[in-house]
């Protein structure tokens, strides 16, 4: 049996000032053929799972093309067309195959394609014809559309956020592909849409956990292949935005429909529980100081590069400096200029720095400080935690600065912080810090929950803020909760 693997994965924040360009993909993940295998073998991600499952089952894996880059603005037409051509061309050259397993996201938006995944899947289905199973692993932050359902056989969204189960979904994709090809199952999928915008909700706690338990109950019943609660990605201004439930059964359309509707109803019932009340940076710091134990992790959810934010916001950093903390570390803030300045001055120097706040006014103005340069690194390390263990991170050159009792790590690439490994690279043992601050919405939980005395998420003005009223939505389908009155769901 031969399975072609590949994909295009992007989470698009259409409110970002700039566009995501071809160069962004090429400079991030742009993998053809063997490169794809080399990059993902041994990594706990979706493609890594596909590769391992195929090896275990004795299935030949044909790597085609995979590209991804950091969440950012709308994908440019040039980039979209090139990505499409590489993926379609790559798949074409491998035919015939018995199945396709594709790694995508679900919230991709391009110039000329509001529904990136739907558009690509449409062309792929046209390419391979109706008989070749197409299975797609997706992020639960995908805005799933009927077009995607219509042009695939199985959609497998991860269930967890932090997405520590992408590897398992990759395994499942290959296992299901084999069962479909052998005739053992005949998947039927139904989708339920809820006009709801949901703030970043970790699945380890209520209400997302409660909904997942509900899905799991459905999945335990006979004939149900998968039921997934897609949170959707709210930082996107397109008609498809919203929460969806996708249910797949073995040949039973009615069962799939009932499952999807039932879970949708449950989510709707819990909608008020999805509203979060987050403290401001100053409040978060005070809560941390009032907490016994070390470390207390403060996550600046509103400046999450993992959702397209600039990662150079200064609201939390300023509050921490104002609080004159001891034994505190900030890891990290994006500012290649300051990194350059630190490298030029050298270890041991004191520099007059203007840190962060260079992208726009929303994220705060630069922090002016005299900073001691303690350590300079190459910014490269490998993830160790439950989320994508084995994945290589490259932040470009970095610097560890010291301002008073605060260690500040400055980096040269926009990324979120997943785990303590970043701090270790710079010589910081987070268990000795009273406060550890970082920029991430929820993914950081995978690496920090095992070590934190307490976790506090803080919200401030930023591209991934919880306060959706800051964004000028024009194209979302109305009425939409929580903006409008009288929103309801199809029963």
């Amino acid at each position: 049996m031969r399975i072609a693997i590949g994909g295009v994965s992007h989470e698009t924040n259409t409110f970002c000032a700039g566009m995501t360009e071809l160069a962004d993909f090429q400079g991030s993940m742009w993998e053809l053929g063997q490169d794809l295998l080399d990059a993902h073998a041994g990594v706990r991600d979706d493609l890594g799972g596909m590769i391992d499952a195929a090896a275990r089952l004795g299935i030949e894996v044909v790597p085609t093309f995979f590209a991804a880059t950091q969440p950012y603005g709308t994908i440019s037409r040039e980039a979209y067309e090139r990505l499409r051509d590489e993926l379609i061309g790559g798949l074409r050259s491998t035919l015939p195959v018995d199945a396709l397993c594709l790694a995508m996201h679900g919230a991709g938006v391009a110039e000329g394609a509001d529904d990136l995944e739907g558009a690509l899947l449409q062309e792929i289905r046209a390419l391979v014809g109706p008989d070749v199973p197409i299975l797609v692993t997706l992020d639960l932050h995908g805005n799933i559309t009927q077009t995607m359902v219509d042009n695939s056989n199985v959609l497998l969204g991860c269930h967890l956020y932090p997405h520590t189960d992408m590897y398992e979904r990759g395994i499942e994709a290959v296992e299901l592909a084999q069962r479909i090809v052998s005739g053992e199952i005949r998947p039927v999928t139904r989708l339920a849409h809820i006009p709801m915008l949901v703030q970043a909700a970790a699945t380890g706690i209520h209400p997302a956990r409660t909904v997942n338990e509900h899905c799991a109950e459905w999945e335990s019943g006979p004939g149900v292949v998968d039921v997934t609660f897609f949170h959707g990605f709210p930082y996107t201004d397109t008609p498809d935005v919203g929460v969806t439930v996708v249910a797949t059964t073995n040949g039973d359309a009615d069962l799939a429909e009932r499952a999807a509707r039932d879970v949708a109803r449950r989510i709707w019932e819990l909608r008020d529980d999805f509203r979060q009340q987050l403290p401001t940076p100053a409040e978060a710091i005070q809560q941390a100081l009032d907490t016994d134990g070390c470390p207390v992790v403060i996550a600046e959810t509103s400046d999450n590069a993992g959702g397209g934010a600039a990662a150079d916001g200064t609201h939390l950093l300023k509050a921490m400096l104002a609080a004159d903390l001891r034994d505190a570390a900030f890891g990290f803030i994006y500012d290649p200029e300051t990194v350059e300045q630190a490298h030029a001055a050298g270890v041991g120097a004191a520099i007059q720095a203007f840190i962060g706040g260079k992208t726009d006014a929303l994220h705060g103005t630069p922090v002016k400080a005299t900073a001691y340069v303690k350590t300079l690194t190459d910014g490269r390390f490998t993830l160790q935690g439950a989320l994508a263990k084995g994945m290589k991170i490259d932040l470009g050159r970095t610097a560890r600065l010291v301002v008073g009792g605060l260690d500040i790590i400055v980096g040269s690439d926009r990324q979120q912080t997943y785990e303590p490994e970043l701090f270790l690279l710079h010589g910081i043992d987070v268990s000795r810090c009273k406060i550890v601050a970082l920029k991430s919405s929820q993914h950081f939980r995978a690496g920090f929950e095992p070590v934190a005395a307490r976790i506090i998420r803080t919200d401030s003005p930023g591209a991934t803020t919880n306060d959706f009223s800051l964004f000028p939505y024009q194209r979302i389908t109305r009425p939409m909760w929580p903006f409008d009155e009288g929103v309801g769901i199809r029963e």
Partner: protein
Amino acid sequence: MGRDGRDSPHLDHKEDDIRIAIGQISHETNTMFGPPTPVEEFQRQGWFHGQEIIEQYERARTYVGGMIAAARDLGVEAVPTFAAQAHPSGTIERAAFERMRDELLSAIRAAGAVDAVCLALHGAGSAEGVDDLEGTILQAVRDVVGLDVPLIATLDLHCHSTGTMISNATALLTVHEYPHVDGYERGYEAVELAVRALKGEARPVMHLEVLPMTIPPTTSFHGPVREINELCWEWESRGGIIDLTFVHGYPHTDVPIISTSVIAVANGDAALAREAARDVAARIWGMRDRFLANLPLPDEAIRQALDTDGGPVVIAEVSDNPGGGSPGDGTHLLRALIDARLTSAAFGFIYDPETAQQAHDAGPGATIAARIGGKTDPAMMGAPVEVDAYVKSVTDGQFITQSPMGRGGRRSLGRMARLVVGGVDIIVGSESNQTIDAELFLLHGIDVNRYRIVALKSQNHFLAGFEPIAARIIRTDPPGWTTSNLRSFDYKRISRPIWPLDEVSWP
């Protein structure tokens, strides 16, 4: 030998009145290797007057830190005078010795009427023309303060005990442990004992028993030293013995006074002191064969490490221990690690300011054509290792000791760099220093628990920091200034016969 106690006219001291001068001159001198040590080295590494001494040491787990803490707890005044120290190196220049002696004496004089003096000395200090630095200092201080003032010194157990020291000090308190995790406790005890002596509760008398033997640096955490220590503690528990210590001596120097010895401090009973000291000395002599070291060379040590289940396996290059006066830039073990093509090894660290500077200049992300180590004595310690090295990070070399031995102490090793050569992470530093805990590795982003092999330069002090986490500890002893193979040294001045270099019978 002993010192007669005399009735003190100050028996009715009250805590409020008590003033205890504290000071330090501490150096472990290797007269065989390395250039003479000038005063500038002491001034650079540890040179403090008055209140500076309090600020520097009050929170550190060291001898002086213990003295300061005891004074505070007992409500007596610690009067800081002068403190100087440098890490082990060559013979102290005459001018440096005289300067330090004069600084200490004038500070003690300037302190006015003091009731006692507590000094943190080492025991293996030697200067040009002054083989017995500690005996000379103690005599000079005694001349200043007179016979009635309790003069108590703490000592490292790598000490050449002499009659001059015994006859001029009221009590000598030597650490029992190696690694010296009990330096703080000895300092604390010194002040406590001084106060007890002042109040008439104790009248220390000492006996020194010298053995014609010399031993390589041997840990007290287990093995023969632990057994001897337990015998000493048993004596101490019986009452009458204030302190009984196995003084290992220091073999990496060429002076007539090197020896292994036992110092007993009894409460008024000279005969008891003599009996206890001789009992312990006899036990040491009886088990002397157990102090002979038979350590593998680097290739063999690596083989043994790879045969061990689990990690990390710590390989200590004992023969190039800066903590014993060796420069710390020998390359025998480093070369063996690179040649073995290991995939998971960390070396922390090798002394090489040139390479550290080269790495800082090139910056992280660059690859440099490096010549690592081997610059001080390539003939004995190995030539520089010539490799292309990737610069992963560069640091300011500043960290705080976490080991129970000296926890809280600030270390500053100058510019440092983390290089990567194949599968080996190599830390390079600009100051010579032994590695005693994993802080150095952490500073450079290395979690030692993840490595198969962790290599370092130390003889025993690393045990306090690494024994709790190591799957196994292996010592390797290639040629070097602090080798445990004592027969390899060309001694010219030591007193012979001395075991194991000669056959000797004792007593």
